[in-house]
C-alpha cells in the first residue's frame, strides 16, 4: 500500500519520551510537513528532554533551547538573524507545551503575534505541566485531576480558550490538529509553511502518565477527543473558518473521559455539564463553518 504521508523521518528513534507519547507523534508529523529546512525553538517542556542531551539530538534539524517564557521571542530573533543573513527560506518554528504557551509564554506569544512575526508557533497541548510531574496549567480542562488540583473533583476552572485569544490577534493562519489524524496534521504544517506571517497550530497531544491511561490508547483517545467533540479540527486561514471534520453524530463525551484516570473523580452532573458545554460549543462551530467566517 502507498503510504498516505511522507516516509522521510526527521525525528529519529531513540528519543527520550515516555512510552506512547503523543508529543512524539506530533513532532514526527510536524517535521514531515515542514521538511529539513526548519529551525525548531523549544522553551522548557517535555520536548526539552525528548530531544536528548547535546551533542545528540532526536530531530534532524537545528534546535535552539530557549527560556520558559521566551519561545516566541527567541524564534522571532532566529528569524530576524536568518533574514539578516539573506536566508528567507528556512522555516522557524517555536514548539511549546501548554504551560509554555497558555501561562508562562503567553506574553512573548502575544507580542510576536501582534508584530505578525514570520514564524510558526506550535503548542502541543497535553493539558498540564507534565514534564515537572503533572501540575495544572491554563490548558487543563475542568474536572481533570492534577498534582495541584488534588481534590476528587479535579480542576475547578475551565480550559482557557487559547484559540480565541490567538484569533483575536488576527493572524493569517490558525489550525488545530491531533495525532489520530496524521494526514490532516501533516497537511496543516505543510500549508502553514507556505504562508507568510504569524501562524499558530494547536495540537491536542495525549499523555499516558499525565492523563492516566494505558499507553496503547494514545491514538484511540486522540481520535475519541475529535469523535466526541471535545476537540475540534478546524483551520482559520485569512479569516476563513473551516471545520475539517464535522461528525454527523458525535459520541457521548463519556467515551473520551472514562478511559482516563485523571477524570476518575468526575460526578455524573459534572460529566453532564461537560457534555452541555461541548454541545454549545459545537453549535457555534457549526454556525461558523456554515458561515465560513
Amino acid at each position, binding site marked *: 500500500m502507498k*503510504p498516505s504521508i511522507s516516509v522521510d523521518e526527521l525525528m529519529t528513534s*531513540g528519543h*527520550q519520551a515516555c*512510552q*506512547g507519547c503523543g508529543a512524539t*507523534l506530533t513532532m514526527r508529523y510536524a517535521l514531515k510537513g515542514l521538511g529539513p529546512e526548519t529551525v525548531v525553538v523549544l522553551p522548557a517542556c517535555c520536548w526539552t528532554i525528548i530531544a536528548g542531551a547535546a551533542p*545528540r539530538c532526536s530531530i534532524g534539524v537545528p534546535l535552539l533551547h530557549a527560556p520558559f517564557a521566551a519561545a516566541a521571542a527567541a524564534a522571532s530573533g532566529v528569524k530576524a538573524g536568518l533574514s539578516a543573513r539573506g536566508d528567507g527560506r528556512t522555516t522557524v518554528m517555536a514548539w511549546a507545551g501548554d504551560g509554555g504557551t497558555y501561562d508562562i509564554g503567553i506574553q512573548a506569544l502575544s507580542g510576536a503575534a501582534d508584530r505578525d512575526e514570520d514564524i510558526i508557533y506550535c503548542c502541543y497541548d497535553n493539558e498540564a505541566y507534565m514534564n515537572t510531574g503533572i501540575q495544572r496549567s491554563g490548558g487543563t480542562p475542568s474536572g481533570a485531576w492534577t498534582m495541584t488540583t488534588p481534590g476528587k473533583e479535579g480542576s475547578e476552572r475551565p480550559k482557557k480558550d487559547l484559540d480565541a485569544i490567538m484569533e483575536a490577534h488576527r493572524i493569517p493562519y490558525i489550525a488545530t490538529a491531533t495525532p489520530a489524524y496524521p494526514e490532516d496534521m501533516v497537511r496543516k504544517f505543510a500549508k502553514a509553511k507556505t504562508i507568510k506571517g504569524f501562524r499558530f497550530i494547536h495540537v491536542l497531544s495525549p499523555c499516558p502518565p499525565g492523563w492516566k491511561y494505558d499507553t496503547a490508547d494514545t*491514538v484511540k483517545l486522540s481520535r475519541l477527543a475529535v469523535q466526541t467533540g471535545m476537540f475540534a479540527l478546524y483551520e482559520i486561514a485569512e479569516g476563513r473558518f473551516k471545520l475539517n471534520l464535522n461528525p454527523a453524530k458525535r459520541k457521548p463525551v463519556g467515551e473520551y473521559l472514562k478511559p482516563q484516570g485523571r477524570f476518575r473523580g468526575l460526578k455524573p452532573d459534572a460529566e453532564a455539564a461537560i457534555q452541555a458545554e461541548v454541545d454549545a460549543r459545537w453549535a457555534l462551530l457549526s454556525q461558523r463553518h456554515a458561515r465560513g467566517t
Partner: protein
Amino acid sequence: MPRLKDEPLSTPVVTPSARPMSENPTGDWRSVAPRIDAEKCTGCLLCWKFCPEACVDVAGEVPRIDLHYCKGCGVCATECPAHCVHMSEEAAS
C-alpha cells in the same frame, strides 16, 4: 572540554553536532514486545504511521519492527485493523 567520552579533547564546545539520538537504544526495561503475524498482515501501514518511536520499517511487504528502539507501548497493536500485532511478555533479564 570533551563533549562525550568518545570525542577527542579538541572537539570545540559550540560546534553544532549531527549526532542523532538513534545512538540511544531502548535497553532492557520494556515489559511487552510486539510481533507482527505476517500471514494476516494486509500491509495497511497503520502500525508504521502511528508508532511514537518511528521504529517500524516499511521497506518490505510486511512492516518490520526494530526492537532496539520499540518501547512496547502497544499503540501498533491497538491500531492494527487486522488484529495481527500481538504483544507478548518479555523474558525477565
